[in-house]
């Protein structure tokens, strides 16, 4: 499914799963991806601290806005999910 890109509430400084601010650590090479950004569906999760969060986001919708860390209003339906931030808009899976 193609996400509605009119907002960027999934991408930003906050983890969509746990709501914490991403650490500023940078990726130190090795066999992991060539940047410090992992992808879980359409949700970008930065840094190694949130790898588990990234894995979780394969099986659940984001709960926190990537831009501001506010809790999202999330509606899950059998074939899609919608997540809304009062400041940064709505994203549909």
């Amino acid at each position, binding site marked *: 499914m193609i996400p509605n890109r009119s907002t960027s509430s999934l991408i930003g400084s906050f983890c969509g799963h746990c709501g914490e601010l991403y650490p500023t650590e940078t990726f130190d090479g090795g066999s992991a991806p060539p940047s410090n950004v992992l992808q879980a569906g359409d949700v970008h999760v930065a840094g190694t601290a949130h790898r588990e969060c990234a894995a979780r986001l394969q099986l*659940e919708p984001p709960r*926190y806005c990537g831009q501001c860390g506010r809790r999202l209003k*999330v509606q899950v339906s059998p074939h899609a999910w919608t997540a809304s931030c009062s400041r940064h808009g709505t994203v549909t899976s």
Partner: protein
Amino acid sequence: MTTISPTTEYPILETARQQVLEDGIGLTEAQLLEVLRLPDPAVPAALELAHQVRLKHCGEDVEVEGIISIKTGGCPEDCHFCSQSGLFDSPVRGVWLDIPELVRAAKETAATGATEFCIVAAVRGPDIKLMNQIKFAIDRINEEVDINIACSLGMLTQRQVDQLASWGVHRYNHNLETARSYFPQVVTTHSYEERLETCAMVKEAGMELCCGALIGMGESLEQRAELAAQLAALEPHEVPLNFLNPRPGTPLENQQLMDGKDALRAIAAFRLAMPRTVLRYAGGRELTLGDLGTREGLLGGINAVIVGNYLTTLGRPAAADLTLLVDLNMPIKELQKTL
């Protein structure tokens, strides 16, 4: 190819072959405990027997269902596994679904070949506002979609049971979740008896009872056997089998994921407890069993699936399950409007 050990190596499976497969009588609690304690090498034989029981007593069809939350979060109850309780610091926010969205979801669910669409609300029991919403939703869905409608709205009064039955709700979900002896460790805001009362009223009113289990919450094998026996005694039409997916912020957030082999043993045991019941894969199977386990369960007693997402978490894509059913040569049960 795996070689399955013959059931003759395991006396409880030989007993089950006669008692459950041939005579159609479910195993007792003590017998179920023996199944749950079978060693790993016996699991394929237990699943194979459970599959034969399912084929003989239920047929080869698989019942497909979609579920949706009409009211998410903010529940006043304290079920320790639930991210929708308003009493825990869970990231799930309260939200109501509007009716056009609900109808759209029902249409999409029907398009997968599903015959069941279950409307769920995170409440102790429905108030007038929710009952009115449900009535409105049922009417709109019935106007536009050919699908059986089920509901799961918590504990009901007799009047509410009668209303739902008269509106054509053909099945009502109200889970036992766990064994009576473990229930107080998991829920303190209502009792097991209250759950049983709703289940009894639902059956009495002629609706099909869907009454499920959530295993992997720290209960012992004895309690798992107790739960299967208690469910069997209720004679529900359907048992959805959930595996704990520990939710952030809930008291069970740090509970270890259930071992996959234990989950498979439980699937076989539940089928051997209830030879004729619809046994549905529900939440948590993706984490606990993965793709391979999903297949093993469908060849081990499961004869129904929830397709797509759950209430607050995501499931496998519906297409993955539907393709698997084709691969396994298991036809999807067709719609028979019961009411």
